[in-house]
């Protein structure tokens, strides 16, 4: 780590002001939320910026709210992992999200790091990114002086550290539909180093004892989390049993194309994806079965 090169911090207190700063400084400025990734990048000598735009002072930027009529939970992009993990609203409406958030990094990073920062940084080893990829109906809200747009996770994540967010856009919110009846979700991760080696999120819906909806996402083994569409297909209309899950897991693993790196070999990561998918499906089915 090297010492930080000098910069100034701008701290807009309205969205409008922040757009102005972004437009004025362009590439010379970085949006700064918790800074857990940004400062690390700067201290590693990978980037330097004369201006940091502290977006934490924007009102309601970290608000967590629930719209009962729409069945939507909305998380401000500036909400920290820790505040999401411990939010009574989240614990009540979307306990799976609280569970996943409690698995992120360590308590200090969770205290400071924001959900928006996690998603916008697009580190391939992200827990929430994989979760949201599998979560049907999730949208991210991006705002700029030009207006507001909603974007789905599979369009948002483009590549390693690359998203569809335009330079002048800010992520303001994450909208998550609560799970319907007979729906269950589960998240499994496998950790050998500091960040996840592989992770899988799965959602299953049951009707008359059969699977009528299935979403699986696999993360950390490639540049971005991906849906396991073929595996989802094998599940639809089937009975939720171990054999079917094993087949789906096999399909999910085969669909991945992991890289060999310090986290493990390609072959091994495929195995882990297989195991995690099977375990996630099993738990999702149990939870679906229990949710009336």
């Amino acid at each position, binding site marked *: *780590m*090297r*010492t*930080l*090169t000098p910069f100034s911090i701008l701290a807009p207190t309205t969205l409008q002001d922040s757009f102005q700063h972004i437009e004025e400084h362009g590439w010379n400025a970085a949006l700064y939320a918790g800074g857990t990734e940004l400062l690390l990048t700067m201290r590693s000598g990978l980037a330097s910026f004369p201006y940091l735009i502290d977006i934490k002072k924007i009102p309601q930027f970290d608000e967590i709210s629930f719209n009962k009529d729409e069945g939507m939970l909305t998380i401000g992009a500036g909400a920290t992992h820790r505040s999401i993990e411990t939010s009574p609203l989240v614990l009540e409406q979307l306990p799976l999200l609280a569970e996943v958030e409690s698995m992120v990094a360590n308590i200090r990073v969770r205290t400071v790091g924001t959900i928006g920062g996690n998603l916008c940084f697009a580190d391939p080893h992200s827990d929430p990114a994989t979760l949201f990829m599998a979560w049907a109906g999730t949208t991210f809200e991006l705002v700029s002086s030009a207006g507001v747009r909603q974007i789905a996770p599979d369009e948002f994540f483009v590549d390693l550290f690359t998203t569809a967010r335009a330079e002048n856009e800010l992520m303001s919110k994450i909208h998550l539909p609560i799970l319907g009846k007979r729906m269950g979700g589960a998240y499994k991760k*496998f950790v*050998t*180093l*500091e*960040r996840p080696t592989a992770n899988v999120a799965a959602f299953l819906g049951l009707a008359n004892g059969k699977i009528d909806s299935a979403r699986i996402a696999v993360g950390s083994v490639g540049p971005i989390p991906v849906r396991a569409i073929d595996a989802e297909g094998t599940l639809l209309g089937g009975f939720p049993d171990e054999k079917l899950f094993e087949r789906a897991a096999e399909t999910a693993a085969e669909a991945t194309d992991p890289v060999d790196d*310090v986290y*493990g*070999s390609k072959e*091994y990561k495929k*195995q*882990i994806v297989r*195991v995690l998918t099977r375990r996630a499906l099993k738990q999702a089915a149990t939870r679906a079965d229990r949710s009336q």
Partner: protein
Amino acid sequence: MLDKAYGVGERAPQVDGPAKITGQAKFAGDIKLAGMLEAKVLRSPFAHARIRSIDVSRAEALPGVACILTGNDLGDIDPYYGHAVRDRPIVAIDRAKFAGDPVAIVAAESASIADQALELIVVDYEELPHATTIEEAMVANAPQIHDTEQLRLGLFHGLGDFQPHNNICYEHHLEDGDVEKLFSKADEIVEGEYRFPSVYQYSMEPHLTVAHWIANDQLELWSNCQHPYLVRAEVADIFSLSKANVRIHVPYLGGGFGSKSYTRLEPMAAAVARKAARPVRIANSVTESMWTSRRHNMICKMQTAADKDGMLLARKVELWLDTGAYADNGPRVVATAADAAAGPYAWQAQKVDAFGVYTNRPPSGSYRAFGATHLQWIGESQINEIGRRVGLDALEMRKKNLLKFGDTIRKGGKPLDADLIGDIQKVADGLDWGEKRGENIGRGFGIGLLAAGSRPVSTSFLRLEADGTITVLVSTTELGQGARTAMSQLVSEVLKVPLSQIRVPDGDTQITPYDRSTGASRSTTLAGGAVHLAALDLREQLIDIAVKMWKLSDEAIEIREGQVWGGDKSATFAECLEWHFGFVGGELFGRGIVRPEEGQGTYSAGPVFWEVCTGGVEIELDRDTGEIKLRKVVSVADVGTAVNPSLIKGQEMGGAAQGLGNAIFEEMHFEDGQLMNGNLADYRVPKLFDMAEEFVSVIVQNEDGPGPYGLKGVGEGILAAMPAAIVNALGELGIEINELPATPERVWKAMNDSRQDDNTLQKKIGGE
């Protein structure tokens, strides 16, 4: 808590606990001198490169830069050091020998200026062919890391005469009996090739040194070093100073585990401070510390022969330890590994050929239980394999073959000074050995010996001050192991004073007397021995005073409750001193000197004692992922006498955690000599979640050690035992491991390999 006397065997609280728990304890990084500069080191990006030229002009011109040191500044001193082989220049001269080798040092008013200056230094490198693995270094016409003919030996290798040659920095051979003959008549032979990874000691506090010159003939250093007296001698030698004019202060260390053994940043800090004519601090980052010291990676070929009854006959071992670009403590590690290779069994013959190999990697040095950790898992897994073949369980194999008290281990060396069968039985009991195991539950243990104690030279003074306070002057370094507490207890035992009346200040080579080093589990035994003698000496003097004061015979005098007693008369130490000096002032000194009892305490006559390395584990294997969960650890600490059982248990638990790391997670990855995971995000250190649910610690006290009260050191053995225990537990589950760490991936692969073996075996059987 401290206002009580605690004798030997009692669970005294840590005397330095209050300082540490409040953040008041001073570590090297907490020392600030007026006018102190911050230094940063420019390091070679190449594993092997000629330095054609270095242009520091732009960096020097940066405001706030005090000076820049390069290899060109070392002309007026002897810039090569290395306690075993003087192969290391303060900064690279002409050639950089590993990626991370210091090439230049900037001293500036602040760390950020120094950082900027580093970017302005232009080095013209010519990349040279490199040898970054043991294999690459050992082939004919391999690139030569050093011009070995020119190498001089260092001041403290303690290994007799030797000369590095080719890329071999040291070799050690042991041969006893006719190995070939025994192998030819053996019923069972187990053989294999094994690999041990490069591991980082990972003390939480990275290396740091502050250097300050007074005039140009006196040097003062604050350094987190384990062996201040050895550093002093080397530094004095480099700069042609009188040793007495090099003063090293050793504050609290944030762990060491061997990484801070011998000379580290001190020559660099001293050289820059000399050029800058200002105090200078060099503080390593974690990455830099990983480039500063690590554990040797190793390749080993081992063969074990036994008869059909499981009686061990002979063992043959060849091993190559990668010492990196500089010998560092490599020669000693090679010798200790050779000692540990055969294991404590009644061999009829053994042959060990051990080599330390220079490569273009960062230097390797000491790390807790070196040698033993490298070898024990290999030897022990072979013994278990023989057992499986002849139908004897692991415990029976040990009972049948382990050496007994007094048996010869190495010709001319110290005979076995422990009851190994008793120890291993305790491990087995702790594991409920023989009880039925659940599915995917494996149990394993290992036992071995570690040549401990290093050279038996330690000294101490006890200063009894006029108010009765006892200051223990001893140069043992407090690294967290509890040295200051143990020393205080040894004093408290003899003089019966409360711990609050005893002080153990920081090591300071101008004040605290000579101690060879803090390592090799030697402190309580040897430095403790000196402190014990000093306390006895002081006791004698107090009794003498009382004899005169009360005109009693010395048998009538007793020391208890922190006072001197003669019948019903009593006096505090302060009163004794006042009577003695006729004045409220004056002090007494106790003196303690430990030196070799016979001979010169050389390596071949040693060790001071054999540390028993034993312990066991119960693991649960996840067959889907290869992940191992520790369920139980049993450690048996064979300590002779426990000065403080709580401290010993602390050593065992911490050592076991490191052993777990070495066994299943930790590995420095290199590609073409580049360290690929030089940080805590990618280098995995055990966390709380990795610990076993249950930890059973057994302390064996047979009073068979060479220290006072028959004590001997601890703290290393369990580390060596852990990989052996884990590999053997996996062996019980049918999984053969020949490369550490046994990461989930390696276990999973080994599992699939053995499954394939089963399949082919079944096919064979089916086809017949």
